């Protein structure tokens, strides 16, 4: 049994060792491709996160210069929690991780306009992107509060995280 009653803000950047599938996917996409969860763990169900289409439609309407698409999946996860499950994203070379985080930040800001002062909302996101000049594929993940996410977005500097 797993317990997730208390959540802390956590972020992580990891280098993907076996990145051949991801590299092919990334090479073939333009902009952002939203993929099912646990793409690297085949034992999990092949489903999209709850906010996938909401986020993708929002991007298509508000940031028309950014391409976004959604990969086929076996279903979409539905949750009754006060959380934003941003789609797992594969970023093509024309979208930097900084641009993606800025995009998520704008989306969240728009979505929490109706929040009450005592509402607490958290975010979960994962994004795969190619780091230049090394050319390695990395995964950025964040789980935690909106406030924590805003801090990460502002201070974001990939090299510092890897120090």
């Amino acid at each position, binding site marked *: 049994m797993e317990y*997730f*009653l*208390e959540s802390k803000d956590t972020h992580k950047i990891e280098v993907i060792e076996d990145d051949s599938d991801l590299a092919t996917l990334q090479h073939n996409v333009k902009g952002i491709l939203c993929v099912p969860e646990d793409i690297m763990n085949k034992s999990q*169900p092949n*489903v*999209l996160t709850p906010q*996938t*289409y*909401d986020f*993708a*439609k*929002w991007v*298509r*309407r508000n940031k028309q210069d950014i391409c976004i698409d*959604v990969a086929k999946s*076996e*279903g*979409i*996860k*539905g*949750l*009754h*929690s*006060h*959380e934003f499950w941003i789609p797992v994203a594969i970023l093509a070379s024309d979208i930097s991780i900084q641009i993606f985080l800025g995009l998520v930040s704008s989306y969240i800001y728009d*979505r929490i*306009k*109706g*929040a*009450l*002062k*005592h*509402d*607490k*909302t*958290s975010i979960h996101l994962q994004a795969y992107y190619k780091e230049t000049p090394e050319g390695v594929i990395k995964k950025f993940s964040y789980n935690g509060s909106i406030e924590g996410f805003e801090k990460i977005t502002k201070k974001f500097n990939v090299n510092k995280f890897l120090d």
Partner: protein
Amino acid sequence: MFRTDICRDLVNSIQEKTSNVIELIQEMNLEEAARELESIVQNVTNRIETFSDELPDEVFNEGYILKQFIKCLEGYVSYWKLLVSDKYSDSWSTLQDIQDHLRTVYRFTSEPRPMILSHIEKQCGELEKLYPYNVFMSTGFIKEEAICSLCGKPVDSFECAHIAGELYRGRPAYGIVKKADLQEVSFVLNPADKRCVVQYPDTAEQFKLVAYFAAGLRDKVIAPLDFHHLDSQKIRKTNEELRKVSRNSFCPCGSGKKFKKCCIEKSYIETTHFVIIPEKITLSTLLQ
């Protein structure tokens, strides 16, 4: 709060009656307040129905928001009615309804808003502390089929251009799940819907605090709009259940040790003492 002349006129036409409702709530004349609100709803609904199709989307959207504002007040009246009728379990759900209407109004409007909204918002947050709910149940499922409430197309696709939660000519878009596979029910601290809780009977010990507050309302010790916040402090009090013996006697718990080496630490217990803090407010400022 409203930008269109039509909706501003509509608000002005119900201003006096709405002020009256607030006074009636404060006097705990809740039946009369509910009747007055019903007539406001009727008035607003009739006016919205006469909106010409040629009017821009914004007018219809503001009409919807105004109805949400009135529903928020209706919920507020119902809440106090349930509370003084000792229907604590139902009052919790109504408290959630009020907050849902508030979120809708906040989402589609910008400052300045009538003060009554921020007052109710703050009260809701504080009133929740009176209840015994800290952990909630939340479902997780795989959606296999969900359609859009407006166009009927699959909501999780680019076929449907609507975005759930947004307004389209006064109608909200949302997904209607037609087929789903329930995966889990989790215990969470922060659910989207706080209505999914362990049910206690209204007479249960768990409602002691809210029952105390309801008694204060009935006895007119405090008026609804004057409730400001709930203060809590830890206090030490004598443990009445502990049989007192001298320090060197054998401990009454039967451990065979001396009392001073055993349960003497339990002579005092720490409990939480709650204080309901009122604040006298000027009713006339609430609709500004």
